[in-house]
């Protein structure tokens, strides 16, 4: 029997409550909690919306519009997190002129909680990234980049735990291999570690040691490499790990119309999502929680 139901949004959404959750639900029906995860990736300094003449993305995107949307979602559910999966920098003159200052200041105004680091965030060198850190009122996570021998040491944590409405949310970061993608002069002594092994460690630490209710991987590895299936990607991380609930990805500018549901190493479902690039979309994942341990193998509905 499948561990979780998949129900397409268009079909009967009334079959929601998994049978397994029933006993606890009837025990304390008012205790359902909702955590909303909002996310962007590869915004690439796209602060202004695309103009009406743009050949591909006419009238789309824009930070000021995203701010309106995020604010309205937060008003509806204060237990909302806003995350970014890297490549904040590079792509418009805003970056060339201000080196990422405006990007970080605006993300702070939008109250981003956590971001990870993409390859283009090294485009002004690791010193250029470090110089902008004072403008970021949010935290950076990366578990597989070791910044010990760089200026970024202590400014990036492997993971961040945030508690919202009593729900413990663990977020860890993964970055792509820099060698061959970014000039060594730029990333300097940043050391890259195998994302799969790190993800296995992180999910164990967050789930078992820290007892997180929700484990999120913020990744800049890329969604999936069809022509190079052995290359580490969000899909390979999803399949090779356990206890990750959601992987938010970037790098490949993949426009997923809805999150992908992948099976992890023990056959449980993992959501993998990515919203293309340039701030054209906002990803939104709502997690509903019931108190107590999952008592049945049939407890969770996924509606995408």
């Amino acid at each position: 029997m499948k561990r979780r139901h998949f129900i397409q949004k268009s079909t009967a959404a009334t079959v929601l409550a998994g049978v397994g959750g029933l006993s606890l639900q009837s025990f304390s029906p008012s205790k359902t909690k909702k955590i909303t995860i909002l996310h962007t990736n590869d915004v690439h300094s796209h602060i202004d919306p695309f103009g009406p003449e743009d050949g591909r993305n006419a009238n789309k995107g824009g930070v000021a519009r995203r701010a309106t949307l995020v604010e309205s979602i937060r008003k509806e559910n204060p237990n909302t997190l806003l995350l970014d999966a890297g490549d904040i920098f590079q792509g418009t003159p805003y970056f060339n002129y201000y080196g990422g200052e405006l990007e970080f200041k605006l993300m702070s105004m939008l109250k981003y909680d956590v971001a990870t680091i993409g390859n283009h965030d090294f485009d002004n060198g690791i010193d250029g990234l470090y110089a902008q850190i004072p403008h970021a009122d949010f935290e950076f996570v990366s578990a597989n980049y070791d910044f010990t021998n760089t200026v970024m040491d202590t400014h990036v944590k492997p993971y961040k735990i945030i508690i919202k409405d009593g729900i413990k949310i663990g977020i860890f970061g993964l970055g792509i291999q820099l060698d061959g993608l970014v000039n060594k002069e730029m990333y300097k002594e940043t050391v890259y570690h195998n994302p799969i092994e790190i993800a296995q460690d992180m999910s164990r630490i967050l789930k078992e040691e820290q007892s997180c209710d929700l484990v999120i991987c913020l990744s800049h590895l890329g969604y999936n490499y069809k022509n190079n299936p052995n290359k580490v990607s969000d899909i390979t991380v999803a399949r090779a790990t356990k206890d990750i609930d959601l992987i938010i990805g970037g790098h490949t500018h993949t426009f997923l119309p809805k999150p992908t549901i992948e099976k992890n190493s023990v056959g449980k479902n993992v959501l993998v999502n990515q919203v293309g690039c340039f701030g054209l979309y906002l990803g939104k994942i709502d997690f509903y929680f019931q108190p107590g341990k999952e008592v049945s193998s049939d407890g969770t509905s996924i509606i995408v």
Partner: protein
Amino acid sequence: MTIKHILKLCVLLLIFSCASSHISKIEGKRIDIDNSLKPQQEIENFIAPYRAHINKNMDSIISYAPQTYTKSDGSYNTAIGNLMADAVFSESNPVFHQRTQQNIDFAILNHGGIRSIISKGNITIRTAFEVMPFENSVVVVALKGTQIQDMMTYLSKAKRAHPVSHQLQLILDKNSNIKTATVHGKPIDDNKIYYVATNDYLYSGGDGMTFFHPNEGLYVLNYKIRDVLIDNFKKKDTLNPIRDRRFIKLED
């Protein structure tokens, strides 16, 4: 119900309330950011002065183009490509010379690296951003003559107008074989060291340019190609690039 029962119930409730939560339902969707959303005024106001400064700077006029130049203007060399390669040579050589007391022999770029046309009319900073939106910067590679020969072979086979500066002359016969290849008017000497300016992308093997390895040394100038163009354009009232005979194929 006895006190004992109530106590039991309390303990039971406590266990449930202390136990961690589990996910009962997940809903995921993608929301469009488009003009149906009203921009938040506070954010707009914050961006405005940055935008105004950039636009003012980007639109400042630094030169003039009497014609429109595109990278499809010629088969083996183009006016716009010659302009760019010559700019890389002339702007980078003083920097390189000051650091090493050596001179650059010539510059090579790639045809695909010309990202936009230069339109007839005023040249602005924005023009340089359009032609070179990427952050690539100049590197100078010390190469043996044998590697330069490999480069000539590459150029003869690529059959594209990869920009080279005017110090290099490469003439192909009608079968695309190398007829003559000279640097500063002299044949390529296999044992001589040549200093070739290019960008970091091509140095890393971009566009199949594998001839930069092995080499006799690498000099990173930390000088962006875009800044090369801006500095070069600012020196001229009018850009007059021309297609010439630096890289040609003979027809008979």
